[in-house]
Each structure stands twice: as C-alpha cells, then as structure tokens.
C-alpha cells in the first residue's frame, strides 16, 4: 500500500505524540519511588506455603503476587504489562535481599546516585516486613556461608562477588518458542514429561516438584493476562475517545489469546513477549532480561501482517518505539555500593539486531531498520541495541547503524560475529546455535539455552600488581591483603614481577570462585525460578530449574577490571626499575605509599607518567596487556562451576573501575590514589594520544577470541567527526576494520565534552542527555559526580586538522 506523503507525515506525528506522551507520563513525570507491595505479598505467600518444597513455594508465591498486585495501563499504551504498581517503581524481593534493603532504607532517598523516594508510611511498612526476613533471606544465608577471607578481600576492594542478595539476570528466554507454542504449549510439554513419570528417589521427587511448579507458574501468568484483559475492557468502557476505546478493546482481546496461545499477529506477538517479560521481573527481579534477537523472532509476524495488509510500517514503528519507554520505566533496586558501580538505573536490557542466520546468511531485514528508527524516536537509555556485524552486512544497513550512533544515545554497540561465533563453538555450541547468539551489554549467549551469569565477580587488576610489588602488602594501608610473593627489590628481572602478579591475580580469582560457588548453590536451594526456567532450554526436558543447572549451557563470568591501568603500571615498573634502573624499587613503593605527595615522589610520578602507555600502538605496553589478558583467561577457565560448565573471563568493568579506583592507592602508571581505573579494556582516558586507529591496533593486540565472555571497548568521538555523509561512511569503514582486526565489541559516545560539562552544571535543562557509561546507557545527570568526571575525562578524539 502506497501512502501519500501527507498521510505518512500525519501518522508519523501520531507516533511521535503517543511515544512522547508515554515518555512524559512513565519516565519524566514518574520520579523513582519505592513501594512495599511485592514484599508484602511475598511475605503472605511464604507464610501460607511455608511447608512446601522451595520450588513449589516459589511458584505459588509468584501466583499469589500475580493475582493480587496492582496493575495499570498507561493511557498511551498499545500493549500492557509492568512489574510494579507504577512506572519507575522498583520492586523489593525480601526473600532475596532483606538485610541490605533494611540497611539502606534510610539512604535510598538521599544517596548521590540513583535516589529513590519512599514515603514515611511505606518506609515503616517495609521496615516491619523486612525485619521478619532478616535471618532467612538469601543475603542473610549467603553472608553466613562466605569465607572471612573473601569478605576481607571484598572490603579491601580486591574483588566483588555478585548476586548475594539479588537474582541473576543477563539472560534471554526462548521467545521464538513462546510465540510458537504459547504457555499452553509449554504446559503441554510439562504434562507430557509428568505423564506416567514415576518419581524415584530424591532426584525423581525433585523433578516432579519442578514440573508441578513450572506448570503452576505458567497457569498463573495466563491468569495474570486475563486480569489485564479485564482491566483494558473496563477502561475502554469509561473512555470517550472512540479511537482509544478501540485500541483498548483490541488489547483486551489480544490478552485473552496471548501469552496463553501461539501468537498470530505482530501485535499479539509483542504483547505475548512483553507480558512474559514483565513477569520475569516480578518472579525474582533479576538484572537484565534480554529481549534477544527481536528482529528475528518477530519477523515472521511482521512479514505476515504486512503481506496480508494488517499493519503498516508506521504501526510497527509505533509498537516497537513503545518498547523503549516501557523498558526505561522498569528500574531495579540496588544497594548503595552497587549504585556506584552500576550508576544511572541501568538494567542492561538489550535488543539484538542482524547477524547471521543458521546457514551463515545475512538476516538483517525491514524490522532491523524499524528497530533502529524506533530507538531514534524514543531516545531513552533502555534497551540498548547490540548490532551483530559480519562481513555480509550491506552498506545500507551499516549506514543506518552509523546514523543511529550519530544520535549520541551510546548504542547500537557493534558486536562482531567474526569473533563471537567461534567463541560459542569453543563454548560447546553447535554451529547453528553459535550463529543464534544474542547480545547482552558486552556478553553474548546462545539465545534461550544459556545461563552464563556475568557478574559472578570482579577482580581489581591494578591492586594485584601493587600487592605483587610489595609481598602482598597494600603500600598505602600497610595491611597484608594478598599472598606473600616477594618484594620488588628482590626480583631478578621483570619476569619475577609478572610471576608474582599472576599468583596474586589467580588467588583473588579463586576467592571469587569459592564465594560465588556458595552463592550459586544457595540460589538453587533457596531461590529457584520455575517460571523463567520453563522458557529456557532444556529445563523442562531435564526437570531442573536453571538454578539447578537445567539450562543447556552453563557458565559463570569473572570480570577483570583495569587491564589498561595495570598494563601501563607494569610497563612503567619495567621501564623505570628494570630497563633503565632510573628508579629504586623501594623509592617507587614509598612514593606509591604516600600517593606521590612529596617533591621527590612527584619526580617519580612524572617518570611514571612518561612511561609507555597502552593504546598508542606501542608494543612495549600493548604486549603486556595482551599477556596479562591471556594469563587471566587461563586462570579463570580452569575453574568448573557448580551448575556444570566452567568460569569464563571478561574484560569489562561496567563502572566498577570507578569503585575499585576509589579503594586503591596510587599506582605506578602515575595515577593518584582514589582515581578511576581504565574502563572495560579501553585505554586509560587521555593516555591514547595517537588517534583512534592506533588505539584500535592496541586494543586488538589483546586476543579477543579467547576472552569468552567478552571485551568492552568504549570510544568517544566528538560530534564533528560524523557531521557529514562522508564522515559517516568513514565511521562505517572504521567499524568494518575493527571487526577485521578481531575486536569483540565497540561502542561510541558521541557527545562533546563541552556539552557534558555544561550538563554537569545545569542538570535541569539536560535531563535528556544520554551517555554510554560502560556496556549500558544512562541519563548523564543521574550519574554521580565521579562517574560524570570519568566520562568527561575519556579521550575525546578531536579531529586533528
């Protein structure tokens, strides 16, 4: 159908006004507020089903919440579903994290990052509720199990260990299966497993419990959809606007069919995916439920609707744009330390676009373009887009990606099929599965069949080096933090220092593994997720929740933080103490101890700063980075994880490089005490002076192939570098070259430092400014000042002219 230009313009302005209206109501005018409802309903259910096996108790709790929680439909919405009673209202899961929420209850409203309001009345209700959970919530249980050694390493800023009081996210369910079977079909699968099953022993009993729990949850979600259907028709009755009334009646009809039955149309498919998406947050409030390969599993519905004249591109665009508003309206409650490392309410929701199909073909399609356009219309931080690049991606598609990058939303991030598909083969997938990976912020997983647990823990690389130089003693505190591996002054050569560093790093990796294994098992014992598991292959088949290792591919991810900082520091020590003999090892350690705060130490600091730096295409520092990254991979992948599978490495820091930096004294790269480390695997901000191509050459000397969980590279370009069609073509070629050289991921921040400084001084008029923090985008003014400063300090590649 050919539309007149006038009609197109009219429907576009309709789309924009709907999206802007939703954005206004659900984001701008919905300041974050904490409500106790989810916590209270959980308490009621846990009391009522106290005697049930945990997995059944969890399913019945989900059902109780879904039957009783407050639901709403925004006046602009075309498809329904939200995890909490109002937009931007994080939910509280007392069964997972009661202690830390209690401890932070008075801080939420006033903390510098991610402040969340709570009324006095709700605060006291929540307090009373949570106090009853103090000894039985997951965080309380875990806290009693983790070793003192790990706790002390956490306190010293050597490591973090994830998921102590929250569920695991960063996972994509099998949406294609949901759409083709519907929950009724999933229940059919569960029934066929139970049919004639004779439970034998503990294992058999456990399977049966799981299947019964999965079935209860699926039924509960079907009933939840019926509640929304009823609400939609009730609102329709009291709506005067006939257009809106029809929309609501359609919504009501659709919710009678999905997610229970297979979706027939694009809108049904979207409603089905979205309602289930909302329930996945309600079940356990994990980080990042991924939307997966949206332009793939939705495409058959799009195509059929278009062919049969049921939908226009504009209508598809309107529906898809709403996803951005609805995703950004979901926020997660995080503790005050975590908000330092994950500032800006990130949920790491992510949509994957393009990539290869099962036979290696290019599967970018019309929906790919629509999603990119939707992001441009909505302009909210969530979800970010991972665009799967490969050599068959056409110029037009890549051009649209560059156009979107230019908007300065911080996405799409470029994910390189050439590097990533082989990683999934290495991780054990079939070729077809490997080609069906979806993207997280940096990590990638075979869609619907992987539970890869990024955020099992983070290790502070630069501090490992400080310990390696000083027999395990932190120079600035004098405390024995690490292993006794000798003193710098006694090392015969640089190799001894590297060997000592490896021992320290391996030690802290092991501490993460020991602590995380305990946490992993605690999740299986206390917090299985029967509903999400029913949509992950092969949980139903195996009769195991994902927490029990029911998923086909299991991993746990450990993040190395500050690879560029530690490489620069090690390069400086090598240059000054070993190659030139210009600085006495004890003087260097003394200078670090006092944070360079004496004239003689200042001289050492200058020499440190002049030493070779990673990011300049200089092998001296770059090969140290390459070797340290390889060493990290070897140390991480040797550890099996408790669900099956093994630990996998990632060079990514989210914003932990700021947090670890605050807890670390001065380092031999000349960095003062407390300053942020390098972000992801990117060079230290401002130290890459030879331009972006040199930085790319340095970055790709690190072997991204073996870093199985992913490598983040954040590059900041000034807007001037993409202000013409020719400049945008160069950006496309630049991206292709990055991928030729074997990079895993690259993302661009396109905001001038001038603009950022202005926003720092004037938050009110810059509320819309979105920046890429590290693997995710956030509103700049919602970040704390340290994170803001760090973003400003990142090298801005001004064009040299």
């Amino acid at each position: 159908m050919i539309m007149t230009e006038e009609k197109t313009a009219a429907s576009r302005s309709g789309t924009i006004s709907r999206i802007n209206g939703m954005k206004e109501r659900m984001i701008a005018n919905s300041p974050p507020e904490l409500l106790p409802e989810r916590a209270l309903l959980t308490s009621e259910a846990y009391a009522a089903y106290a005697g049930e096996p945990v997995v059944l108790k969890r399913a019945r709790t989900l059902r109780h919440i879904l039957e009783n929680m407050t639901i709403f439909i925004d006046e602009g919405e075309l498809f329904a579903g939200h995890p909490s009673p109002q937009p931007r209202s994080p939910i509280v899961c007392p069964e997972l994290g009661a202690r830390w929420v209690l401890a932070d209850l008075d801080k939420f409203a006033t903390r510098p990052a991610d402040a969340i309001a709570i009324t006095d009345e709700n605060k006291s209700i929540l307090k009373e509720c949570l106090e009853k959970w103090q000894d039985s919530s997951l965080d309380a249980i875990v806290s009693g199990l983790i070793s003192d050694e790990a706790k002390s390493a956490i306190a010293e800023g050597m490591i973090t260990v994830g998921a102590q009081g929250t569920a695991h996210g960063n996972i994509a369910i099998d949406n294609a299966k949901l759409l083709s079977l519907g929950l009724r079909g999933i229940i059919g699968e569960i029934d066929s497993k139970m049919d004639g099953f004779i439970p034998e022993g503990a294992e058999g009993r456990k399977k049966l419990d799981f299947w019964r729990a999965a079935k209860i949850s699926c039924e509960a979600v079907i009933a939840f959809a019926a509640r929304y259907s009823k609400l939609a028709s009730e609102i329709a009755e009291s709506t005067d606007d006939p257009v809106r009334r029809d929309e609501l009646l359609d919504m009501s009809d659709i919710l009678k069919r999905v997610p229970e039955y297979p979706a027939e149309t694009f809108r049904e498919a979207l409603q089905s995916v979205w309602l289930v998406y909302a329930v996945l947050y309600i079940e356990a409030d994990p980080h990042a439920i991924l939307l997966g390969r949206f332009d793939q599993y939705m495409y058959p519905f799009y195509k059929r609707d278009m062919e049969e004249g049921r939908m226009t591109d504009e209508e598809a665009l309107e529906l898809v744009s709403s996803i951005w508003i609805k995703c950004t309206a979901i926020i997660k409650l995080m503790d005050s330390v975590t908000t330092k490392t994950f500032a800006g309410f990130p949920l790491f929701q992510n949509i994957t676009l393009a990539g290869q199909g099962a036979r290696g073909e290019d599967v970018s399609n019309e929906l790919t373009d629509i999603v990119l356009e939707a992001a441009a219309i909505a302009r909210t931080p969530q979800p970010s887009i991972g665009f799967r690049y490969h050599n068959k991606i056409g110029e037009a598609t890549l051009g649209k990606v560059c156009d979107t990058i230019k908007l300065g939303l911080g996405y799409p991030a470029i994910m390189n099929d050439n590097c990533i598909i082989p990683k999934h083969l290495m991780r054990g997938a079939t070729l077809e599965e490997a080609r069906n990976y979806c993207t997280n912020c940096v990590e990638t997983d075979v869609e619907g069949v992987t539970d890869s647990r990024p955020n099992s823990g983070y290790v502070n690389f630069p501090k490992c080096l400080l310990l390696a130089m000083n027999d395990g003693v932190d120079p600035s505190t004098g405390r024995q933090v690490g292993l006794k591996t000798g003193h710098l002054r006694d090392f015969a050569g640089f190799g001894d220092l590297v060997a000592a560093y490896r021992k320290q790093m391996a030690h802290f990796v092991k501490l993460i593994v020991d602590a995380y294994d305990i946490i992993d098992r605690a999740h299986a014992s206390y917090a299985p997720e029967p509903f999400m598991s029913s949509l992950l292959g092969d949980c139903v088949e195996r009769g195991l929740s994902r927490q029990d290792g029911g998923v086909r591919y299991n991993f746990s991810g450990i993040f190395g933080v500050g690879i560029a900082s530690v490489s620069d520091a090690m390069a400086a020590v090598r240059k000054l103490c070993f190659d030139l003999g210009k600085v006495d090892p004890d003087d260097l350690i003394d200078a670090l101890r006092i944070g360079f705060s004496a004239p003689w130490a200042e001289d050492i600091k200058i020499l440190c700063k002049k030493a070779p730096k990673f990011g300049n295409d200089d092998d001296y520092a770059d090969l140290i980075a390459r070797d340290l990254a390889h060493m990290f991979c070897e140390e991480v992948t040797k550890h099996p994880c408790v669900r099956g599978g093994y630990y996998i490495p990632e060079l990514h820091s989210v914003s932990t490089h700021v947090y670890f930096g605050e807890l670390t004294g001065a380092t031999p790269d000349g960095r003062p005490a407390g300053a942020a480390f390098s972000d992801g695997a990117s060079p230290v901000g401002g130290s890459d002076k030879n331009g972006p191509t040199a930085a790319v050459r340095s970055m790709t000397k690190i072997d991204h192939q073996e870093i199985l969980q992913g490598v983040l590279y954040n590059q900041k370009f000034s807007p001037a570098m993409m202000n013409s069609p020719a400049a945008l073509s160069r950006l496309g070629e630049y991206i292709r070259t990055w991928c030729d050289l074997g990079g895993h991921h690259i993302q661009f921040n396109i905001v001038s430092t001038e603009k950022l400084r202005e926003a720092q001084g004037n938050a009110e008029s810059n509320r819309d400014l979105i920046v890429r923090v590290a693997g995710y985008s956030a509103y700049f003014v919602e970040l704390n000042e340290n994170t803001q400063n760090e973003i400003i300090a990142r090298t801005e590649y001004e064009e040299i002219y």
Partner: protein
Amino acid sequence: MKSSARGRIFKIARYAIHDGPGIRTTVFMKGCPARCLWCCSPESQSFEAQIVWKEGLCSRCGRCVRQCPNGALSLDGRSVIVEARRCTICGECSSVCPGNAIGICGQDVTPLELLETASRDLPFWRRSGGGVTVSGGEALAQPLFLREFLELCRSRSIHTAIETCLCADRSAVAMISELADFIQFDIKAMSPVLHRRLTSVDNGRILQNASFLLKQNLAPLVRFPLVPGCNDDEGELNALGEFLAENGPGSALEILPYHRLGVGMYGALGREYALPDTPVPSKAEIDRAAAILGRYPINIIS
C-alpha cells in the same frame, strides 16, 4: 639498500577523514616557504626542529630549566624562555615536564621509517580506499624525500595524496603529478600584491603550477581559504573564478572557512597572531562567496 633522503616531519594524524578519499593517515612535513597570516600550524613553518612551550599546560615548576644540560632555558616568572642559540634540541626538558607543556617539534625520518609507522593503518586504508596524505608545512619543500616516499608507496600499492600550496619548483610539481594518486592545492589570493601581503610570497609561480596541474587531467581538488576581510572581496572571488574557468573548467573547488584553532600555538612559540580580530566567516559570508564563484563553470564543494 640505497641510502635514503631523510625528511623532517612534525606530526602524523591518524583517522584523518578530510584529506583525500577514505580513511587517511596524514603526515605533516616541517617547513614552509610561505607565511600565511592565518596559518593554523605556525610550528610547521620553520624548517628547523624547535622547542615548543605551551603556556596553558605549564605549571611553572622549573623542572625543565633545571634539567637543561645547556642552560638554554630560563623561567622569567610567567614564561619559559628558550634561548635558541644554546638549545641543541636534545629533548631533556620534555622528559621531565609533568604537563607535557614543553616538547620538540620536528623529527627526522627516512621514507621507509615513515611508511612503516603510517602502515599501521593499512587495514583501515584497505577497507576505506584510503591511504597516506602528505601535508605540511609544505610537502613539496622536501622533494627528494617526497619522491622516494611516493615511489615506495606506489611499489606497495598504497594510495597517496598531496596537500600543497604549490609554492615550489616546477620539477617537484611535475614529480607529484606523476607519483601521487590525488592532489589538492590551495589558491589563497589572485592579486599578486594581496598574495604577497597575506602570505609573504609571490603567487606567480603558484598560479603557473596551478595552471600546469589543472591542465594535466588529474582532477585535483582546489581549495580556497575564505578569510574575512583578507581575500573575500568580490574582485578576488571573480578573479579566482575566471582563473579556474580558463585553466580547468569543471574542476572541483572547496571553500575552506577560516578558523582560529591554531591561535594558541602562536603563544607556544612566543609569537604574535597576525589576525587577532578576524572573525570566522558566517554562513551568509560563505554562501555569498559560493554564489559569486558559482557563476563560473566550476564544481563547488561545500
């Protein structure tokens, strides 16, 4: 291997996207015969290596003064003074400077060394159809080095571009017309008196070289720096239009609006900027110039 002419460069810019086709690596040669009033890289002018002191980055800590083995530096309260007579360009000052405020401008390289450095960008060139651009200073002022460098690039199938002011011998111009893959040159003013006043050199030779290149069928890009109050009167613009129409009808002309990005560098060299009050041209001024030039059979690139 035969001994190579050494060239003196002062900067290599990677990911240059306006200096010829594709993603380019631009090499800036040191030394220029002209002294354009608006020159945005005054450190490029002298053929000699020199010390550059950037006032804004300097903390006046005096480390450089103490470090200098030749006593060539002094600190007079606000400024670091370089006594050129005593300075041997050894770089000791820069090795201790905390703010990277003082440093050497000018480095000698062989054609092969330069190519090896630049070739780190080869994967980008291959993807984008880019290559090396030699700029300046004045690229043609070191013709022996340039010839060897261009020959070396051609032997490796690397695309080359030249940016020149054409204030050079015909033999050098003929050489680049054979060895470079793409040429862009400036015409700064048509009136000889005005040209001399603005650049301190005559334009007779420049225009002859321009005419020579325009008639070679090499499709060069002509660039005209539009400097308000200096070379933007109607007579000048018409003369430029006529010249191009006569010597290279249909040739491409890019108007480069004057900018002030190099002003800070004058202070770093202890020099005065000659156009302290000249504003950058407004869009209307650029459009006006384009409209006048647009009357001639030339292809104006905005």
